[in-house]
Structure formats: structure tokens, C-alpha cells
């Protein structure tokens, strides 16, 4: 009988502790739940975006095009004009909605060359891409032939 009374007293104490903190104020239980939910949503969003990007072949194609173009530039001599088949790149970029305000494919964003830093950047999605250096001291100009699905490199 004594033990039951003790148990009841403890349970009452505990109930008080759950609703009120030491100073007798009400516990704020909502903010941890919100943080917890936002954390989970962010985590799964990033995970899904990552999987979607990788599974469409964006990462792989960006890498392959960057390396292929850099090697072609390094193997070329000044005065050359190189045409590279970019069919797959255009397809992936269209899928990833790399379009301008008029709804056209924003080709100038796909392959960028920084001649100062000798850096080549290929981006087939709206954010991010793959960068690769070339070692030749050339001025390289990039052109796009959309109707032929090709990109043109002019080496100076």
C-alpha cells in the first residue's frame, strides 16, 4: 500500500516535469519538432536531387566531355578548328532544363573556357558542372552548331 502511494507520487512528479521545466514555465516542444522535420526534408531533398542528377548521366557526361575537349585542345596546333559531336550533351542539357528566358537552350553555359586560367568548364545542368585544365597556352574560342548538335573550337 505504501509502495503504491509512493509510485503515484512519483508519477505525479514526473507529469509535472514533462509539462513544466524547473522554473515552472511551459516547455517549448514545437521548435525541436520543426527543426527535426526540416532537417529530414532537406536531407531527403538533397539525396533525391543527387540521385536524379547522377542517374540521368549528367555527372558522367560532364566529366567525359570536359576531358575529351581538354585533350583535343592540348593535341591541337594553333589555327585548327575542331568540331565535336555534342548530341548527348544537348540531350542531357534539354532534359535538365538549361534554358534561357525565351525557352531556348542556353548553349553558352554548356561549355565555357577560361583562357586566363586554362580552365575548361562543362555544365549540363542549371547548377554546377565539371572543370578540367588544359596545359597549352592557346586562345580557344567556343562556338555552337545547334542544328548539327556540334560544338566548334577555334584554336589561336
Amino acid at each position, binding site marked *: 500500500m505504501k*509502495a503504491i502511494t*509512493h*509510485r503515484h507520487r*512519483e*508519477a505525479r512528479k*514526473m507529469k509535472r*516535469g*514533462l509539462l513544466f521545466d524547473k522554473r515552472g514555465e511551459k*516547455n517549448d*516542444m514545437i521548435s*525541436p519538432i520543426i527543426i*527535426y522535420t526540416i*532537417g*529530414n526534408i532537406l*536531407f531527403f531533398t538533397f*539525396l533525391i536531387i*543527387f*540521385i536524379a542528377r*547522377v*542517374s540521368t*548521366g549528367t*555527372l*558522367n557526361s560532364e*566529366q*567525359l566531355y*570536359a*576531358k575529351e575537349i*581538354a*585533350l583535343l585542345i*592540348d*593535341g591541337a596546333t*594553333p589555327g585548327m578548328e575542331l568540331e565535336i559531336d555534342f548530341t548527348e550533351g544537348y540531350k542531357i542539357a534539354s532534359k535538365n532544363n538549361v534554358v534561357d528566358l525565351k525557352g531556348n537552350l542556353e548553349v553558352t553555359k554548356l561549355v565555357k573556357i577560361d583562357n586566363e586560367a*586554362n580552365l575548361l*568548364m562543362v555544365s549540363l545542368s542549371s*547548377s*554546377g*558542372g*565539371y*572543370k*578540367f*585544365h*588544359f*596545359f*597549352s*597556352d*592557346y586562345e580557344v574560342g567556343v562556338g555552337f552548331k545547334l542544328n548539327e548538335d556540334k560544338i566548334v573550337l577555334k584554336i589561336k
Partner: protein
Amino acid sequence: MLLKSKKIKLELFRDNLLKDCRGEKILSIYWFFVLGVVGLGVVWGVLAFYGADSDVRILEANVLSEKLLRCVSENENILDESFDVFVECDLDKNIFEEEEIFYFRISFLNEDEEKLREDILGGVYSFEETCELTGKVEAKEYPKCVERGRVLSLDSQRVYVKVLAASNQRGEIFK
């Protein structure tokens, strides 16, 4: 009686752990840890399945060595100490000196394998040692090296040009 009281205390402790905020906090930290582990596992699995890394370092070393050999063959003043390989061969000096991803050495030897001039070097000198280790030790991070040579005829003298080129460029994803 003592046992009974201990049992009650144990029950109270269990109830407390489930209802108390501290227990919830512990659970959420544990949950984020589990999410992290699951996330890493998924990323690793997806990359292993889709993202076959294309390694072109050996091709790059090949292109560099071929470019150097072609350039050296076309120049007649290669034995002059004033010969600037970066200018004559259209190589970007900054890339070789700052990026630490390329290396080359050009040696000029006569028929008796004596040096006709100082070797021309560029890039990361330590690649030379790692190139020597290639073949003996397998390491993913080691640069890929290519060595090739050509015999040239300069002022009725036979010059054996030896080029060692190395690349350790892997490329980078940017956000």
C-alpha cells in the same frame, strides 16, 4: 518489499525515458546519425553504379610527351641554354608551376649517352620519383607517366632526345 520498490523505480525510470524530452533529444541525434550513414551509403552506391571515373591521365601524359617531342624536333636552337620550352612549345607556365598536376623532363644525349645540355624541367619535380616507382608499386594516387624518345640530326650531330611526361590531373566537380 525492497525488491518491489526497486521494480517500481525501474518502471518509473523506463516511463521517464520514453516520456522525457531528454530521451527525445537522444533519439533525434541518433536519427540524424542514422540518416548520415544511410546517405553516405546511398551516395557511395549510386556513384559506384553510375559514376565510372574516366581516368585520362595516361592519355594526357602521352599528349604532353608527343607535343614536346614535336616541338623539339621543329626547333633548331634546342641546345642553346636560352631555349624557352614554354614559349617555343606553347605551354602555359602557370599551369605547370601553380596547379601541381603536370611534370616533364627533356634530356638531350649524344651517341655515348652523355648530356649535351642541362635537362629541361617543368612542373612538379617530385613526380620524377613517383614515376620511377610506377610498375613496382601500385598506387591509385600516383601520377601516370610516359617516356619516349626520338633521334634528331642537328648540325651533322645525332641528338637523342628523351622526354618524360607525367600527369596527375583528375578534374573537379564544381557547384
